[in-house]
């Protein structure tokens, strides 16, 4: 089966679908805004695009084998309640067209109570409740869980809150060997973050949810060749995390190597620098450790910005200066920087899809659609005055 990685045009936000050679699917984050569901709005209908790519189970439900929320910010979980089923699998309504999550991968932040540093949007709260429900199922059953109840907790939490999680706890630097309860050789997934940080650290460093971001290094198999593409995905991890990662892996930088990088926090300057881009502009300083952590690109690598078009302005994210840094990194390996919001055009961005081949990822061409040629154009899209 073809291995693909699809980045959906969700503005400044992330939504990435991986289809492994085994046929299993992993969805990383979701950002289906109300406007995307509105047929009258020009925002790409990413909900429909996602559904088109999912398989149906025997009960006719669309499903993902695993869903991971990198961190509980709205631009990573918008539309979750609208499009995904959250609740006990036995209570899935017959007439529902929601997407079924066979296994949920959650960061340990779900165990934290809301606080000044942790306010959650409605979708994030719903996911937190679902994660808690699944963890409770695990604790109550003490045995293998069924699809729809399965959960993995990615990273340990402070104070021993996660110590009793046994098989469902993935510690940092460990491999996730099973997807939806099954060993899957078509993906070598290693958890690089969230690093275990105490709540005190969070307060001290004025760190936010972004620091709880799950960072995964995913080696994808193509035609039986393991690690045909190394994909690094990092949610909104910021400069402090990258510095720590570099310090940790500087002696073995291959841990951070990639053929494809989803640039953290939608091409944000804050993944590379502590300085404010809008205030300091070109005099803002790059953290060399953070840059090193993000510069381990392999030959021909793609660096993806999951963001709106990158403009030369004060905006951050996406930040033009960050783009320049990434372009430089890409150029050094004759790779390329691609912004999801700009492909194929800024006016009409479409899902950016890569096929994983034995020679690495390749950008899958999108055929020119008849709807583009024979669509109604302006008619119906805007009021047309007639004299």
């Amino acid at each position, binding site marked *: 089966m073809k291995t693909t990685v699809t980045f959906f045009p969700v503005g400044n936000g992330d939504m990435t679908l991986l289809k492994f050679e085994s046929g299993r699917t992993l969805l990383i984050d979701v950002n289906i805004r109300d406007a995307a569901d509105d047929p009258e709005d020009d925002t790409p209908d990413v909900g429909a695009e996602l559904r088109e790519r999912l398989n149906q189970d025997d009960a006719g439900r669309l499903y993902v084998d695993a869903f991971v929320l990198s961190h509980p910010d709205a631009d990573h979980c918008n539309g979750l309640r609208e499009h995904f089923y959250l609740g006990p699998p036995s209570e899935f309504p017959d007439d529902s067209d929601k997407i079924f999550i066979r296994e949920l991968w959650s960061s340990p932040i779900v165990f934290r109570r809301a606080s000044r540093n942790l306010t959650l949007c409605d979708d994030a709260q719903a996911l937190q409740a679902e994660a808690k429900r699944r963890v409770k199922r695990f604790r109550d059953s003490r045995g293998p869980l069924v699809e729809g109840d399965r959960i993995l907790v990615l990273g340990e939490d402070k104070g021993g809150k996660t110590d009793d999680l046994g098989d469902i706890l993935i510690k940092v630097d460990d491999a996730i060997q099973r997807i939806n309860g099954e060993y899957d050789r078509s993906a070598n997934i290693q958890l690089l973050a969230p690093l275990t940080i105490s709540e005190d650290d969070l307060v001290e460093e004025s760190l936010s949810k972004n620091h709880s971001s799950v960072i995964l290094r995913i080696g994808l198999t193509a035609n039986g060749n393991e690690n045909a*593409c190394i994909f690094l995905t990092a949610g909104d991890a910021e400069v402090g995390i990258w510095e720590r990662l570099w310090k940790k892996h500087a002696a073995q930088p291959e841990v951070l190597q990639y*053929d*494809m990088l989803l640039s953290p926090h939608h091409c944000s300057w804050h993944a590379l620098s502590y300085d404010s881009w809008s205030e300091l502009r070109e005099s803002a300083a790059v953290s060399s450790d953070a840059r090193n952590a993000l510069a381990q690109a*392999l*030959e*021909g*690598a*793609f660096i993806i910005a999951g963001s709106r078009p990158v403009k030369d302005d004060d905006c951050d994210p996406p930040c033009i200066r960050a783009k320049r840094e990434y372009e430089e990194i890409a150029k050094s*390996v*004759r*790779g*390329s920087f691609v912004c999801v919001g700009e492909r*194929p055009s800024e006016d009409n961005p479409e899902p950016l899809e890569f*096929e994983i*081949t*034995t*020679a*690495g*990822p*390749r*950008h*899958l*061409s*999108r*055929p*020119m659609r*008849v709807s*583009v*040629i024979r669509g109604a154009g302006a008619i119906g899209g805007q009021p047309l005055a007639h004299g």
Partner: protein
Amino acid sequence: MKNEATYAPIALGRAVSLMQRHPNIQRVRVPQVRNGVIDVEAAISVGLPSRWLAPGRSPNGVLPVEPVLFRFPEGFPLRAPRILLRQDFDRSLAHVNPGPPNEQPSPCIYDGNLDELLQRAGIAVILNQLVVWLENAALGRLIDPAQGWEPVRRDSLRDVFVFDADTMRSRVNRDAGHRLFRLEYVLKQSSGRSAIFGTVTDSTTLSPTSAKDAFRKVILRDGVQYGVSVALFVWPGRRATGKLWLAGEYRPETVCDISSLVARAKDYGCDTQLANGLKWVANCLKGGVTSDATVPVAIILCARRPFHLIRSDSDLELCPYIAELDSKSSFKASGATGVRPAGHRDAISVRLLRRMSDTDSSRENPRWIQIGVGSVGSKIALHMARSGAAPSTVVDSGYLFPHNAARHALPPVGDRPDRACFLGKAEAVSNAARQLAQDCAPFNLDVRDVLRNEEQMNSLLPRRAWAAVNSTASLSVREALASCRNLRLRTIETSLFSDGRIGLVAVEGPDRNPNCGDLISSVYELALRDSDLRRVMFEEPDSVRRVDTGLGCGSPTMAIPDGRVSIFAASMAEAIRLLQIEGLPGSGQILIGKLSDDGIGVLWRKFEALPCKVVRERRDSASPLVRISQLAHGRILEEIGRWPGKETGGVLVGRFSDAAETFYVVDVLTAPPDSLRSATHFVLGKLGLRQSLRDYARSCNYALYCLGTWHSHLSPSDPSARDYETARALEVSRLTPSAVVIRTPTDYRLALAT
């Protein structure tokens, strides 16, 4: 006024504008007019994997941005642009159209006609296809071993040879060899170039001495030449290691002369056989052609591929070429002698017909007999033959007359239609089947006579055959088939009724129960219960009339157009084809088709026909029979259940066949209210019965009518004296034979007056 083809500049402008907006086209250069064509160059981005982006090309040389030339012909937009790749594009990739090395390579991006694709889907789809092609080329996916080896595309070549590839392949063994075949060809000159259409037929053992009469050439008209020549077939053997010579490398079709042909034969491991074969052909030509002449010779090279060809189970690719050898050089093929690649078309064969009909070609063709090849039967037979399942036998005593030209599947042949008469219909269909590469034995016989002759019947209608399809539309043939108790072969009747507004396919059940007599009786019963069918079949005037076919001559037939016959005949043929694929049903089957009110469509309904209860008076084979339909049987049991401990009864309705000496009981009518029931006897009353029987028979125009009575016995006893008395009373009271049927707790018994 000369209708000059011109460019449609607006259409071209639109195409270029659309090209500019294609997501994979980086830039489009201003169109250049050159020698009557317009070239548009575009830079197409190709999605290469990341690790090839650093070296800037795929291992086989495809660039991340490929320059492509779109050569728009004068006929655009009726004709699609030609797509040309850069001169140094790797030609050894599969799916590159054949062409000489000095021309830019042209990719074969679509498995079909590009002109048609342009009309259907527009230039964008051609661009999409091209992008997919370039990416597959880069990724080495143009040939997928799982799908099979892709043979060189030869469908756009002017010269074409027809031969049966399987027959040719069957000559190939593990040792290299060559063989000559007879080639019949037509050569046409057009646009200053010759094009040859040839048929390679039987193998021939030509020698220089026997070649005298082997070569012929006749100029027909307008420079069209018909001739007979030879085809040289050459195949590979083994390598020095003893292993079979496999040609595993894909090579573009660039053969243009004998030198390049020999080089190609060398790749395929058959160059020695080619040289020997060409020498032999030259010697034969010298012996056989006396005048100054150029003789076209077909050369078919065979390449053994490492895996099977796409959509084929053979690994042998056959590559035909044409060489025109001339007497001035003693027909010797020198290196510079011109050679052109030629196309191949499969000869007509059952396999080809089945492939075209999407029918499994591995399945053995069942032996079946078509009785009656008039307007309906001939169409069914030809539909079946075209799907590779011609009848093995056709029986029809008729001859083709001029009026048959209106509806028979076979139009008159020859220069003068009136001379085409007096050919037996069976023979005409048999000839047509032969043209379709199938054997179909014709018998110019009346099937009613065949059924009377046991030996002939067993020979023409053997019980081991699949089925006999009766398309005679003859009541007497149906009766003959129904009454022939020794006939073991299931029959399928196909008929039209009511001015071709109703069609019937009636399939007899296993052991001919229900038989065609039962089935037609059930059809009448079904029509009686369906107001629409009843109106068409029974209430409107009899549609069969005598149509004049000459002075004092006429044919009793329905005067309906050929198209209407075909509407039904096509469905009937499909029904038969599907029955052959799926097997005859486990019971009888009735398909009734009704022409739509607008006269252009047919709606078919399917009914299951369960076996009848067969009641005999005596054990001998000539005994009259009563055949009771499942419907009637069910109603009889129901009525008995209603009167426990008492005899009850009713009236039998259906039809009687004189020929078959058979009562076909389709239904029973309830006894009138003044009937008397007791443990020892049943008396059928009369209140309103005469009227209801009259109404019943009238409602179906007397197709079905009263057949007698039935009653129950409480024990398994034979007819009583009273029963026979009633039977005799019935007998004398009417002209139609009557039956008295008794239902005992275990079976049926029969009392007849005589």
